[in-house]
């Protein structure tokens, strides 16, 4: 099993989620995070001082999937999640040793 951790644009999340659902992925965990990278921050003004906020809102999407799904799922995310502009984000892939369903105790691919 692998865990895919995708840092992505909030604006693209809905679309990615739908495509993953169509592909057959149902389970996922979503976190609101902020990130910085190559993308420029936002310039704001407050009481006459201009400043830059360089942590931008991102969505972290975590998917635990079986090894054979990895390729297709990354494809879908690249396809649906990119705008072509800096700030589209990353997919990080981890090895995962075990997954357990709390309700039933099922393990491995059955748990996800």
């Amino acid at each position, binding site marked *: 099993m692998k865990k895919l951790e995708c840092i992505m*644009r*909030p*604006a693209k*999340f*809905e679309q990615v*989620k739908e495509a993953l659902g169509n592909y057959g992925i149902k389970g996922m965990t*979503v976190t*609101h995070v902020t990130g910085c990278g190559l993308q420029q921050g936002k310039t704001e003004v407050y009481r006459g001082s201009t400043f830059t906020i360089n942590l931008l*809102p991102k*969505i972290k999407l975590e998917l635990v999937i079986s090894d054979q799904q990895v390729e297709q799922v990354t494809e879908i995310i690249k396809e649906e999640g990119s705008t072509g502009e800096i700030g589209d984000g990353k997919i990080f892939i981890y090895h995962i040793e075990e997954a357990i369903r709390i309700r039933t105790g099922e393990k491995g691919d059955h748990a996800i």
Partner: protein
Amino acid sequence: MYIKTFKGEDIMLKKILFYSLTSIFVLALPTFAAESPTPLTNALALDTVWTLIAAFLVFFMHAGFTMVEIGFTRAKNAVNIIMKNIVTVAVGAVTFFIVGFAFMFGDTLGGIIGLNHFLLAGADKMDFGIPTMAFWIFQAVFAATAATIVSGAVAERIKFGAYFLLTILITAFIYPVVGHWIWGGGWLGDLGFIDFAGSTVVHSTGGWSALVIAVLLGARVGKYSPDGKVMPIPGHSMPLGALGVLILWFGWFGFNAGSTVAGTDMAIASIAVITLLGGAAGVLSTMAYTWLRHGKPDPSLVLNGALAGLVSITAGAASIGSVGALILGAAGGIIMVAAVEIFDKKIRIDDPVGAISVHGICGAFGTIGVGLFAVNGGLFYGGGVELLLIQLLGVVVVFLFVSISATAAALIVKSLVGLRVSEAEELGGLDINEHGSEAYVDLEERIGTTVLSMGEITK
């Protein structure tokens, strides 16, 4: 509620009243204005203007109650709080129009209850010193206030439908009966019981109703741990709670000073001063007391302290002096802190916003305080114990009547629709389970672009 009559001018005044009121309700078009003004019509107009503005301020107190209750409860129940409060205003107004006013101010049946003027039929001929409609609206917003006090104490677990029915019963019957006894020509008022602006009529009635319904409901899930510890359940927004308290205090000036129903009654000035000082004393005593006890001034109690001080001077607002207001307000603040602790930890009645302590206990205290501090007749001003005993009697009788009738009302409602939501609904929040709604949908996603995962429209 003090009702003025221009003695010695009755005939002329009544003529004017009759003339102007007839024109209002029959023609519903102002013709009075075409007459030249006289001192009498001007005084009448000023009294009307004063009473109406006071009524608007009391109406605005509902925004205060709503904010206080939202602030002191959890976010998952905020929409439910909103619904309860706005429906209380609406139900209060309509019910008081249909029956409440009749029970309260109709001709008395043995000092117990009024029994005519339902739907305000013939009410325009009644003489309150101002047009009946002005008097009515002031009374109607009071009735809703008494009902809304319950809302806070039963928050986060009562069924919306049950609350709705209870509000009807309180504004239609329980409050008007107490009101009749004291302000509507009933037996307590006749005895000389003094409750100028409603420490008992409004606050205790609301507070005791809250008490018995909170007991019947039981505590919120998680309030008392299995091993018996008290688990505080902090509210989710102190800023909204504070805003609510300041709105309530603002409205209270109308509540108290408006209870003259006469702007020509110069007592309004000292009543307003007493309302300022009573609240201030409540703030300071609560601050000092919690500072001493916990090493830090406790904000949630200081906010309640303002209200406790205000409730404590409401009965005596026209009878006590400035110093009396300071003493009663300060004592009210401390009594409230003690009461909150006793209800929370000893008697174990779960009251999320402290409504029972603030309105029930301080309402009773303030009423009794009149017997002590009334410049005219109070024990400490050499007036003997007579007034004090009458005040005590009123407090006890109202407690008995309200607690019994509210229990009956709650049991009826329970048998009809049930009182409390299921544990799962309570855990998930009333907003989603009772209203299919959430208070703060977009907050976390606030810089996101589209609302996340709104999913499919299913209907």
